[in-house]
């Protein structure tokens, strides 16, 4: 790919005069060196949060899901909000590595590895919630179509919840495989560099005996392309199916055909925000400043703007067509005038401010290229997207077709605790990852180190 001509006005993707050797050493550094204090403190806090979450999970399972804040009207709230939020975050990684590969966006190479890791860890958190919500998680295998002792008791393939089982598990396993296939050459690089015999053993097992022969590379490139082609519709399908959980029902505010693409766009929106959040830290801590540059931040912010715009359009469609439908129940959907003044006004305005108003600042070039401000905006978007899911679920359920059963929702400490616990687990996994894995796909990054300039091509 190195003899591909590039216009001189394109920005360089790697700053400074790096050599192949420099890239190798920069990627090796966090694995070879000892962890700093900051890392230990972060891990300690994450473990604490995780332990708190574990306790809440045990309490829930031991007592029953009555300990959550759910009631008869709002029978889905905090847990499914977290589920959708985490699945949404888990969309950016595979999008970056699959869709951007198909679009041949070279800037993906500095961030795809970490983004994919984030995807996998986020999907793990998402998968926890339905399992906890089962109440009897030891029967979780009942969702699978396996012959059983009850005769012909099969799962219902008409149910979107079952589609979810297939979608999330396929997504998780395929993205893990996609991630791992790309990791093999980089593990081989670490294997050949590292001196500690124990680590060498581990990395040589993980590298599968990779040698970097020409045939291996050819197959590697081909398989990455095909996997990207397979993952792209998969990314779309996963959040589409998550949106089907809501939109196949005939509950007002949920039964809307725009939900599938709108959820996908929202997922990418929140996912990229999370990538920004994590990479902003990783860039500083692992000193990857020459690989994750202002340009990378700007490109990601542009995707955030694009997907945020799509989400905004979907809000407008929902708002106008809710009125257009003429149904009195549609007057109180999550995005309506009534919701703005109703009992959940705070959730509504959190959505408006975090998801619509604040991201518009990214239109300003200097903010879009500022590490600090894009970091702040990314965190705000993360919060906003959480509230969006909360609004869609809780607001719509709170005013259902039977006015006598209208009610509110207050989360219990267990609800909040499990959420904090998943954040803890997510950060534990991420912190372990950045110390043991090659955080940048160095082998592919080396291919873009020297783009051929015009005069060199003419000489040929």
């Amino acid at each position, binding site marked *: 790919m190195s003899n591909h001509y590039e216009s001189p006005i394109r920005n360089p993707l790697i700053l400074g005069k790096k050599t192949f050797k420099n890239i190798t050493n920069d990627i090796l550094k966090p694995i070879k060196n000892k962890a700093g204090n900051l890392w230990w403190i972060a891990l300690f806090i994450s473990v604490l949060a995780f332990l708190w979450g574990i306790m809440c999970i045990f309490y829930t399972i031991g007592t029953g899901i009555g300990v959550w804040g759910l009631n008869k009207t709002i029978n889905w709230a905090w847990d499914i909000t977290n589920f959708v939020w985490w699945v949404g975050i888990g969309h950016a990684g595979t999008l970056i590595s699959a869709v951007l590969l198909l679009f041949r966006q070279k800037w993906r190479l500095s961030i795809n590895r970490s983004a994919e890791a984030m995807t996998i860890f986020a999907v793990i958190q998402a998968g926890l919630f339905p399992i906890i919500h089962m109440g009897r998680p030891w029967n979780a295998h009942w969702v699978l179509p396996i012959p059983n002792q009850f005769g012909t008791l099969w799962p219902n393939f008409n149910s979107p919840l079952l589609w979810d089982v297939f979608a999330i598990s396929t997504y998780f396993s395929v993205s893990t495989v996609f991630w791992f296939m790309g990791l093999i050459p980089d593990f081989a690089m670490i294997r050949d560099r590292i001196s500690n015999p124990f680590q060498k053993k581990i990395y040589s097992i993980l590298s599968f005996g990779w040698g*970097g022969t020409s045939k291996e590379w050819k197959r590697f490139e081909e398989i990455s392309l095909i996997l990207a082609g397979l993952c792209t519709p998969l990314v779309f399908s996963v959040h589409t199916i998550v949106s089907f959980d809501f939109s196949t029902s005939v509950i007002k505010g949920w039964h809307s055909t725009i939900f599938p693409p709108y959820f996908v766009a929202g997922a990418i929106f929140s996912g990229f925000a999370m990538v920004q959040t994590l990479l902003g830290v990783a860039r500083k801590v692992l000193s990857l400043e020459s690989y994750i540059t202002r340009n990378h931040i700007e490109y990601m912010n542009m995707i955030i703007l694009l997907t945020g715009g799509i989400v905004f359009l979907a809000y407008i469609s929902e708002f106008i067509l809710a009125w257009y439908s003429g149904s009195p129940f549609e007057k109180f959907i999550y995005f309506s005038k009534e919701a703005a003044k109703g009992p959940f006004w705070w959730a509504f305005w959190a959505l408006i401010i975090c998801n619509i108003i604040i991201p518009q600042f990214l239109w300003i070039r200097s903010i879009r290229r500022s590490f600090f401000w894009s970091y702040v905006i990314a965190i705000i978007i993360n919060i906003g997207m959480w509230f969006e899911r909360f609004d869609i679920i809780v607001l719509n359920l709170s005013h259902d077709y039977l006015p006598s059963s209208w009610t509110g929702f207050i989360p219990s400490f267990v609800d909040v605790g499990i959420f904090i616990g998943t954040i803890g687990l997510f950060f534990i996994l991420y912190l372990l990852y950045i110390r043991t894995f090659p955080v940048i796909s160095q082998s592919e990054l080396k291919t873009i180190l020297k783009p051929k300039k015009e005069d060199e091509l003419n000489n040929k």
Partner: protein
Amino acid sequence: MNNNKDICLHVLYDDDRILLNGIKIIQCHNFCSINEVYSPFPIHNLDKILKLKKTNLSFLSFVYGSFGFCLASLLTWYIMIFDWPQNIGGKPSFSWIKNIPSFIPVIFEISIFFSAHLMCISYLIQCKLFPGFSPKNPDPRTTDNMFLIELSIKNNSEKLVNLLKENGAKEVIIKK
């Protein structure tokens, strides 16, 4: 190729473009043959110069996907139509084809599942990669910044070595 008489040469380069040039020089000499090229990253055009055939992985993944499609169709038909048909939410499960919209998501996911996983397994088998295999690269530097051509040569090695060194080879190691 690996006759006992042959001498094995390891030619190392530190730049991919000089490497491609070196391969062309070697290919001009018909008394030696390139066994393998090791590189730290995929080199564009290398497959064309070495005349590697296009792999069948894309075809295989299509076959695997079709297999998954058929399997999922069979699964949904057997479970929902044949074994225990029910009327669920006004969607009577007495005809697979009439109920197909609600089976599409699962059929899609299973197709992708089989296609992706079986293709990766085929890839690992074709490349002979397996957890715990010993490294294939003869020199650990080839995963860092060096490019290595492994070639076997009958005689006249000195002349070629000199020629390669003139054309930018960093190091030439003769292995018996």
